[in-house]
């Protein structure tokens, strides 16, 4: 029994769609049909139904937790929900659809392994569908599901479903990044094909939505290729009573890529010094090896000068190491991005000063093509070049979501203004040049 519980996997997914596509209703339905709604929550829903909803229980009110959301009937912010079935646990990010809150979709999508894009069967593929598909691809979400919702309002038409599917398949190859893609005809309001099969779609032979997300293969979603260990906190006991700890100098952090083993040869960047792993220390005892995304404390054979923001890397493959970076950013602030501005850039455990040296283009969501642009407005995505005050140790975002991502923070207001995804490095770090300091 407890062994069975030990192996339960966690799947993080996000839902996206336009206003009124039924995202919150779908999550409400998943919670309701998987019996994750409690009686007191149901009572609260019924109370508000009697007061404001003309007696109709609104499943969307389960996730729309803020006063303004209930008043306006919209979802303002990312809401996180938790669903457990006997097969898996789920963390659900319910991300709003209206254009002005696209930054929240990026937030919800950044930690997801799977994206559910809702499409209203009556409206078919609209700009938001393309935008959400693009953002899911851009954020490196491996699995995507297009849930064609409100099928009850198009008389369960197979023809309409196929039309929408073909419309999406026409642009998907341009994104070309998903491990798997599913199309499922549903009615979130009535529950068809969400948790149980519908007898109103005899022409549909695939899984239910829940059946799919319970079984999709996610074990290989973390990066296990190439050790990356951003040093988070130097662990050095003050005045330890245990004499064995007098010389303890540990480097604490979360493995951001690959596997680390005792005895392994590693490189510390930016200094370029080499050493070996002496011990993988944890509270629960030493480990022979550890892997992404475990949190551990590494001890090296050599007493090197290492601090937060440094990265311990394996020798193969080596990361990029540069202060000149190129990548895509999603702009999240009402004040637009223009070239020449300075920001703080947080990457891994390092925060450095950075300047956007040029804005190369803005992505057009109709064509997914880059267009010339002089600024990025809120919710725009564009190509930029950035210069940092100190070089970053990084990988391309498509190779590693943790070492390939960054945020920009505006000095003064401290607002998080951009989410960035780095392009693969033009060249990797060259250890033989380490005698020449940069």
């Amino acid at each position, binding site marked *: 029994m407890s062994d069975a519980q030990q192996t339960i996997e966690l799947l993080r997914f996000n839902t996206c769609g336009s206003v009124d596509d039924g995202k919150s209703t779908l999550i409400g339905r998943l919670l309701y049909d998987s019996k994750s709604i409690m009686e007191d929550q149901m009572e609260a829903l019924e109370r508000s139904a009697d007061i404001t909803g003309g007696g109709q229980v609104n499943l969307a009110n389960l*996730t729309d937790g803020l006063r303004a959301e209930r008043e306006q009937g919209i979802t303002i912010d990312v809401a996180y929900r938790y669903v457990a079935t006997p097969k898996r646990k789920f963390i659900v990010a319910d991300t709003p659809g209206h254009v002005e809150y696209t930054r929240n979709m990026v937030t919800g999508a950044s930690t997801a392994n799977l994206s559910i894009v809702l499409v209203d069967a009556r409206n078919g593929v609209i700009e938001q569908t393309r935008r959400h598909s693009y953002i899911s691809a851009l954020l490196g979400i491996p699995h995507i599901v297009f849930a064609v919702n409100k099928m009850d309002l198009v008389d369960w038409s197979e023809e309409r479903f196929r039309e929408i599917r073909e419309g999406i398949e026409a642009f998907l190859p341009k994104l070309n990044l998903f491990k798997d893609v599913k199309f499922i005809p549903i009615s979130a309001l009535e529950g068809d094909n969400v948790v149980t099969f519908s007898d109103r779609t005899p022409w549909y032979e695939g899984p239910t939505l829940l059946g799919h997300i319970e079984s999709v293969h996610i074990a290989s979603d973390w990066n296990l290729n190439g050790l990356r260990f951003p040093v988070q906190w130097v662990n050095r006991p003050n005045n330890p009573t245990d004499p064995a700890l007098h010389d303890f100098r540990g480097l604490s952090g979360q493995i951001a890529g690959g596997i680390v083993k005792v005895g392994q040869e590693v490189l510390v960047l930016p200094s370029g010094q080499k050493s070996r792993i002496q011990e993988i220390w*944890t509270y629960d005892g030493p480990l022979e090896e550890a892997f992404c995304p475990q949190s551990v404390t590494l001890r090296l054979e050599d007493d090197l000068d290492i601090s937060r923001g440094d990265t311990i890397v394996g020798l193969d493959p080596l990361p990029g190491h540069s202060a000149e970076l190129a990548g895509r950013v999603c702009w999240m602030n009402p004040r637009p991005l223009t070239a020449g501005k300075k920001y703080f850039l947080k990457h891994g455990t390092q925060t450095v000063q950075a300047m956007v040296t040029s804005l190369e283009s803005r992505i057009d969501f109709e064509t997914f093509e880059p267009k010339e642009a002089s600024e990025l407005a809120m919710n725009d995505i564009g190509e930029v070049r950035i210069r940092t005050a100190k070089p970053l140790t990084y990988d391309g975002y498509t190779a590693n*979501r943790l070492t390939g991502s960054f945020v920009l923070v505006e000095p003064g207001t401290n607002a998080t203004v951009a989410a960035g995804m780095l392009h693969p490095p033009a060249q990797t770090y060259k250890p033989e040049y380490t005698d020449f300091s940069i």
Partner: protein
Amino acid sequence: MSSYHLDHLAYLETEAIHVLREVAAEFERPAVLFSGGKDSICILRLAEKAFRPSEIPMPFLNVETGHEFPELIEFRDRRAEELGAKLIVRTVDEAFEKGLATPTPGQVSRNQLQIPVLLGAIEEFQFDCCIGGARRDEEKARAKERFFSFRDAFGQWDPKNQRPEIWNLYNARLNPGENMRVFPLSNWTETDVWEYIKKEELEVPNIYFSHERECFHRAGQWLPVPPAHEANGKADPYEGARPTEQEEHRRMICRVRTIADMISTGMIESPAENIDDIISEVAAARVTERGTRADDKASEAAMEDRKKAGYF
């Protein structure tokens, strides 16, 4: 089975450890809010995992209403001592004396009064970050809150203007006087907390387990009958929180599912004697954890309104 794969508890653990280390690295004067409740018990174990063999590099802070379960206070003090941590306690009564807070006429619960006490302690010790055990599954306003939840110079949460939180890159930057609340257990559920307590063999205060207690029925809840008032010349701190003649009261086999203080905590009838019993009971529960919290029943937006004012 792949050996390079974390199960759900191990995933939640590594995420929380990462968050705790970010706090230690990014803030100058952080504190851990430690009440002795089950969630903050998990936070302390996670802090041990994040920082050992070093000392946990931050003090513990608790705000007392003056209506606490004595079992909880005893456990809190003992646990802090076991961990070699500095425990700071600030109370609503002290806040009355210092003029930081004034009693609300006609209201016996001091739940709201914890807000000025907490903000006063933050000011007194110049804390720039307080780590709390709140979880997003507890309450729908919390479901919208970030791991790193920014508070302005008045301690207020602005739910419509939160910093986007992307990947595991937490923006910890503050201007003077501003404050961060950090919730490492954001993604944990009630079940996860109990499974973790079981896995880590953590001690919890005995009021979480079934025991016999005198309770009375008020506003749909079974509330504990407060301890008898000693004739010490002072006003009864539980005046208004004792059963009236009309209110049903009886001895019950009961336990707490969530702990506030004695005035805000509904007891549940339960035979659960150990952690496994509790896990089964939570799995079968048909009401939410906070369904037994009188402080949440004030209105549909009770939590949101308190958070905006600076609540935990």
